[in-house]
């Protein structure tokens, strides 16, 4: 099942011949530092999930839902587009999508870096818990909804209700913002913010974002605590 090349140690796993579970079991069995190519994904869901080794994984085509979810170690590159919830609950490592991502990209990720080279759909970075989500293009509505910690960088435009009910995560937007969500506000950019964005652009390979010209969105902190007496009518 696993073909080991001679030049570099590159394993190949073919989704046309293996089930999703077989692919993930084979990935889990690889030694630290292995490079592996996943062939013929054809929209397959749940590839490369829950891995804890340092691996260099390339998915050679368009993939489905939950790609690289729950990972804590590997670097994953998708040579195509992905469905819902790529890198959901990511703990560490880099996940790079060469094309567009569907909804909920990087949802609840705790650490690591998710790079979308195209656009991301709605709810990108929803409930972010410390991870970093960088999108070269646009993001859809309700992105960074209830994001608790971490960074969302958007090279293009943001859709409606950006950062609704935001906690301590910070959002940087290179383009326009259709509308802000409840309790989200645009704040003044500091030198530290500019340095953070510059560093992210280098790491992501984004050369189209002017770090000094992005808009910073953070929480106004008015919805932090539930006030039982506020506006009480009963």
């Amino acid at each position, binding site marked *: 099942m696993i073909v080991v090349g001679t030049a570099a140690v590159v394993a190949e796993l073919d989704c046309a011949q293996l089930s999703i579970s077989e692919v993930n079991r084979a990935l889990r069995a690889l030694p630290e530092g292995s490079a592996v190519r996943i062939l013929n994904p*054809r*929209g*397959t*869901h*749940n590839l490369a999930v829950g891995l804890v080794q340092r691996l260099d994984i390339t998915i050679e085509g*368009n993939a*489905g*839902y*939950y790609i690289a979810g729950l990972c804590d170690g590997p670097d994953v590159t998708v040579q195509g*587009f992905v*469905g*819902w*919830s790529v890198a*959901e609950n990511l703990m560490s490592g880099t996940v790079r999508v060469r094309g567009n991502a*569907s*909804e*909920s990209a990087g*949802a609840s990720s705790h650490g690591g870096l998710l790079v979308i080279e195209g656009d991301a*759909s*709605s709810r990108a970075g*929803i409930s972010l818990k410390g991870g970093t989500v960088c999108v070269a293009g646009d993001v*859809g*509505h*309700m992105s960074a909804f209830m994001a608790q910690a971490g960074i969302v960088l958007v090279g293009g435009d943001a859709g409606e209700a950006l950062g609704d009910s935001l906690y301590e995560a910070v959002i940087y937007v290179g383009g326009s913002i259709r509308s802000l969500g409840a309790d989200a506000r645009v704040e003044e950019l500091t030198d530290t913010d500019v340095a953070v964005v510059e560093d992210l652009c280098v790491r992501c390979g984004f050369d189209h974002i002017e770090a000094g010209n992005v808009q910073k969105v953070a929480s106004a902190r008015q919805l932090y605590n539930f006030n039982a007496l506020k506006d009480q009518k009963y």
Partner: protein
Amino acid sequence: MYSEETAQSQVGWQQGVPVCGIVGLHFKNARLDPLLGTLLVPMVDALTVRGPDSAGYGIYSQDVDEGCFKYSLRAPLDGFAWAELAQRLATALDRGVEARPKANDAVLVTTVDEVDFRAALGREAPDVRIFGWGRTLEVYKDVGHPLEICNHYGIPRAAGYQGIGHTRMATESAITTEHSHPFGVGEDLAVVHNGSFSNHATVRRDLIERGHRFDTDNDTEVGARLIADAMARGADLEVALKTVVSTMDGFFTLLVTTRTQFAVVRDAFACKPLVVAETSDYVAVGSEYCALAGLPGIEQADVFEPMPEEVHTWTRGAA
């Protein structure tokens, strides 16, 4: 957010995450027409995991004479005497009626219009259901595994210029053939739905007050009849779908087809997925990309997800 993962363990609906699968093909190049079933069946099969309890298909083909209607009928029992019913209807209506039996179903072909046909059928065979009708549309649906239903009704061999399919995971109403999709409630009109309408009871009451009659207590039937109602008042399909967006509350991705048009729309929150792939030869839609991955020329297709509340319409023969 977790719906697809849980769907694979088939407990999705118990956790309150309704999922269904929808697929559709609209050919621009008539050379593909003989391949409609061949291409449609693997698309449905790829989405069986989203809806394993029942399935249905709408097939559009021009295989009857000018002036004829096709009525897609379901008998209450296996082994129904379709030829005999056709004969009785022909006598009652004094018009030719041809029966084309297919498993438990039959397509009856006649020049009789819907109102007269429905009245005559009600007298001659009140237990027989009409699942769809029109000049080109045929509707097949049943409970059970989607692929088995495909084979049972000969979908793999179906030819035509347009086709839709639905795999159902029931959430709002019972698992029966009548509650399955597509809903064919207007001439050559077929509707498949992924999601759930939350105000269907209110809208149903309004439609009943306006004279509409319902076959089931299913939420999708309400959306379908709302579309038929708007179109009967002169709206085109795009306007009818905007009426759905402004009237229906809940989660929905809808695929709606008529004799000449193929259209999709998603709710304001885009809660339910949809992927569209368009080439110079076809428009294909599926709840997930994996349903489209096997289509010819998919690598060169323009692949996108419709934005919330955006109505996308394709018209047969349009440039």
